[in-house]
């Protein structure tokens, strides 16, 4: 099991009037190379669950172990290294540094690792070629279309060759053609043996052949899967 969650709870603003119990006792096991879709209505806790798996924050209680790393008690610094080494994250809305070139955006995760400029650019170009946007490598990221932006963000998530890919509502801002393109890129990653976890309530995603398992969250609790 590459991902193991046991009785995980997550509270926001604990013990304040604004307390939210976003994840309520979720247990989940994902095998290496599996592709899982977590769906559920807006506010059901999908992003929070991805945040726990991705090491953005620790669960309030329960056990979370990913790739052998026990996340529950890690201080921030180690969560960051964990994220760097194991997670390729594709956030909603595809944030980039608009004034920087496509290639420079793609290699951002490698800069603090001390990878030599030439080597990281070579790796970036290979990924951009694979995703069919090499011709845009020197263009400012702000000038990309939605589909190109999506591919940039995927390339950036893959640059450090992570074993796990997390994507949060990746198709929410894409038309169906681009959504299909996204699914096929993820299928390739899965074929390479990467584990894919996607949070999405888009049927195009959870009904696709990419997905091995479809989980449904409701009010922070797992109701199916």
């Amino acid at each position: 099991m590459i991902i193991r969650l046991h009785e995980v709870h997550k509270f926001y603003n604990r013990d304040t009037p604004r307390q939210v119990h976003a994840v309520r006792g979720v247990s989940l096991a994902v095998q290496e190379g599996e592709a899982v879709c977590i769906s559920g209505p807006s506010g059901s806790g999908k992003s929070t669950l991805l945040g726990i798996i991705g090491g953005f924050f620790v669960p309030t209680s329960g056990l979370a172990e990913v790739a052998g790393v026990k996340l529950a008690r890690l201080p921030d610094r180690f969560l960051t290294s964990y994220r760097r080494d194991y997670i390729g994250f594709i956030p909603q809305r595809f944030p980039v540094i608009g004034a920087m070139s496509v290639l420079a955006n793609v290699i951002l995760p490698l800069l603090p690792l001390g990878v030599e400029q030439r080597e990281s650019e070579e790796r970036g170009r290979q990924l951009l070629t694979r995703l069919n946007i090499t011709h845009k490598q020197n263009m400012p990221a702000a000038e990309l279309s939605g589909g190109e932006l999506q591919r940039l963000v995927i390339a950036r998530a893959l640059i450090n060759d992570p074993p796990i890919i997390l994507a949060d509502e990746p198709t929410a801002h894409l038309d169906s053609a681009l959504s299909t393109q996204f699914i096929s890129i993820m299928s390739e990653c899965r074929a390479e043996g990467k584990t894919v976890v996607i949070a999405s309530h888009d049927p195009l995603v959870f009904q696709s052949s990419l997905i091995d398992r479809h989980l449904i969250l409701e009010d922070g609790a797992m109701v199916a899967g």
Partner: protein
Amino acid sequence: MGPGYLISLRRQRNLLDFALGSLWRARWKNGGIVVVFSLVIFIIASFRLMVAGLEQASTAVLATVPDITVQRLVAGRQMPVPLWWVEESGAVFGIRSIKPRVWGYYFHETSGANFTIIGVEDFPGGEPLPGVAMQAVSADEQVEENQFSPVVLGQAVHQMLALGDRVNVSLFRPDLTLKGFSVVGLFAPQTGLVTDDLMVMAIDDARDLFALAPHNATDLLISVPNPLEVDTIAQKLMAKLPGSRVITKAQIGKTYNAAFGWRSGFGMICLIGTVAAFVILAWDKAAGLSPEQRREVALLKTLGWQTGDVMAIRFMESLVVCVVAFLVGTGLAWAHIVFTDGFLFKPLLLGWSVLRPSLSPVPVIRFDDVLIIFVMSVVPYLAATIVPAWRGAMIRADATL
């Protein structure tokens, strides 16, 4: 990947590249900061270099001042000193030498300049001014040597007389008859501070030129080997020579320091105010990260950047801004003093006080002055940006979620 130090070196390089790119992306804002900051450093550096230059100048001037100068006052005005004062003073124990001097100003109509004429006993036999470097002038033209009196000129005087290759020059006596001189030497350019406006000649020639009665001088220059005895000897001279004004070297030094010492202190206080204002400005700018900058930090954190990595780029950005502003500001200040004689701040430091010889700052770059400028400008800026940078770098990765 290679050994640890190589990785860390490449990390620094990558982060520096990123920091430079990030400065360039906000070039208008950062350019503005550099301009303001350069200006602040320019002001600080100008003051510091001016004060250092004036200190240097006063030291150089004081080196040519005799241990004791004796003048004569009648009804509060300076009058010629009778030469019998020399014998009279000679009786005071502890004096090495007493030399009468004739000096005064000569207005040169063609150039509109005032020259300082000094007639000394040691010249032409010995050095015109003890310890002041001089270049000899070749003397092809000095045919009728007995008619022309030898003179040594400061560089500025030489230029204003527009002599070119000629060595002979005539000056007017008070009765408008002409007295001929032959230039036998020029003071070395590096002594310009004390020699620029000088014409040094034999004491008898100066007397002749100013139509001063024989057995008279303008003042007496007294040399005292033991500095501890200077004050006592000055007291004795005053008692021995009624109507004399006796000035010690230390008193002249005090006059110089009084003239610019407190003003430079005052200036420094004003500067600290300016710097404080700037620090607040820097703080204000840096503290309020724009939403775009916050998103950028959150994104970098999402991509596996540590707080330390983000801090490093912020620090590099500040450092680049500082170093550029420091070089520009200090360079301008230096140019301002070398090429314009510090015209912007000279009135503030020297004010209206009239000193003889007048002071002009010498451009000196001393390591400790540069250090002071650095400490007063770069350090407060870095200190002011570090806390906001740290707070900015603490933005969490999950802000991207």
